[in-house]
């Protein structure tokens, strides 16, 4: 069959002139459009507003408390440096543990796959358990590398904490899991705009975790809050070992007690969010 062809092919063709001029390169209106998109985004999003004030405030608190501690000069220079590096390495484990869980859920949301898993014969608790195992592998890799580099570059061995390192790490990983489950619950509840919590919520605990400074440096209110944070007992215990005062069983005990309470609380929150989602429906897209 002969296909119909354009009879005018090859003939000179005249185009109509532009009906409207192009948008000027330095026009302000398109720029205003981009800005307006952000204004609309922030107008309706509490998590995004939180982010604006959150990081400067937290940085100020963490570094401010550290400055107070260093000014006191309680620990000899070497031990203080060890405490700082040890604090940093252990804090990273807590961070990775929390991220391990929330990022696994976020990955499923980003790839629009969470619903596929909800329909499958697995429960959300299977996903959490899988995320916990992934988190442990990530911690082993990232912290293993950081510990090795700290030894090679700064001659600091985290293993100088001896066997006490094992319960310290365990307590921090459990706290990370609890915060990861809580963050995931908030993301499932409030959608993808609560995603900033996945990266930021852990740092809310940093000033009251006594990572780089002892609890005694904190103002009274912060000190009282720090008691209820498992990580503060771990970091206090770490400094006690480093200063040669031995292992503190009471600190470990408090850390474990609060860890269990955190896990129970986060699982309760997660189950409530799931129950609500079954009542109001899961969003297929979970987008902003």
């Amino acid at each position, binding site marked *: 069959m002969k296909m119909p062809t354009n009879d005018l092919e090859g003939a000179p063709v005249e185009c109509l002139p532009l009906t409207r001029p192009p948008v000027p390169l330095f026009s302000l209106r398109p720029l205003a459009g981009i800005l307006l998109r952000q204004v609309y985004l922030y107008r309706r999003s509490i998590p995004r507003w939180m982010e604006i004030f959150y990081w400067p405030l937290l940085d100020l608190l963490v570094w401010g408390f550290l400055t107070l501690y260093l000014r006191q000069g309680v620990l000899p220079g070497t031990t203080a440096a060890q405490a700082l590096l040890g604090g940093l390495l252990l804090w990273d484990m807590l961070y990775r543990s929390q991220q391990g869980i929330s990022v696994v859920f976020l990955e*499923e949301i980003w*790839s629009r796959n969470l*619903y*596929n898993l909800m*329909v499958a*014969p697995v429960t959300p608790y299977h996903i959490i358990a899988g995320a916990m195992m992934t988190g442990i592998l990530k911690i082993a890799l990232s912290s293993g590398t950081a510990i090795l580099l700290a030894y090679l570059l700064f001659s600091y061995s985290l293993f100088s904490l001896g066997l006490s390192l094992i319960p310290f790490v365990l307590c921090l990983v459990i706290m990370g899991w609890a915060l990861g489950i809580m963050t995931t619950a908030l993301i499932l509840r409030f959608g993808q705009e609560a995603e900033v919590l996945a990266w930021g919520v852990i740092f809310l605990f940093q000033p009251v975790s006594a990572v780089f400074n002892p609890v005694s440096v904190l103002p009274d209110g912060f000190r009282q809050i720090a008691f209820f944070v498992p990580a503060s007992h771990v970091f206090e215990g770490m400094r006690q070992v480093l200063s040669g005062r031995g292992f503190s069983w009471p600190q470990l005990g408090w850390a474990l007690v609060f860890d269990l309470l955190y896990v129970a609380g986060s699982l309760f929150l997660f189950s409530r969010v799931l129950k609500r989602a079954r009542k109001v*429906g*899961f969003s*297929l897209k979970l987008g902003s």
Partner: protein
Amino acid sequence: MSDGHVLVARQLTKRFSPDRPPAVDGISLEVSRGEVLSIVGPNGAGKSTLLQMLLGILTPDSGTVRIFGVDIIRHRRRVAHLINYASTDLSLPYSLSVRENLEVFALVYNLPQPGQAVSEMMERFSLEPLAKTKVGRLSTGQIARLSLAKALISRPEILFLDEPTATLDPEASAEVRQLLLEQVRKERLGLVYTSHNMREVERLSDRILLIESGKSVACGTRDALYGLFDCDNLEAVFIRSVNQARQDRRRDENADK
């Protein structure tokens, strides 16, 4: 439950807000082994809400959904391995390859021989040349084929599909339709299907459920619906039934006032 019915839903009702009418209002349906039931209705008619309740992931305010006699709302884990789902609104992890995605779901569905199941699906859906391609690099049609492979890898007894061909060109749609029909006939699975493509619904369905504003307008075979609404094609049936349902509703509302 009647003999041969793999799914029986009765008087399903779901209201999301007390100020608004129910999203689904007293819908009943049943699906037999090897039967294709299409759910058809305008946007916002309640199709997706109904599907979510049939899948057991949304709790109805009232009514029951039984899959092989098991109440899926209360005992989802007992029958979750017998159902599967695919939708154009969903995707699969972009950074995983076609084969990797199927491997993951073969394990998630606890298949005894995951490797074999993956190979079977790859062959059946002509995905072998794409085995190592990441999902993020696939065309929409290829993603639709992969989604179907994922939905069928667990050998479901009931498959739920939410507008599986909505984003496909006519050629890819025809291909997906053909694959679906082959599966339904070969595996004798029950298929619950939503679509806005009336020609497709006509070709695929054994029975069609028409819904509007959450209510069942009519349910029957294609020819029965043609007769009921005095039309010779489903598009005309759709328009006439929806208009009629809307007129009835307005009349009822005015009568209430």
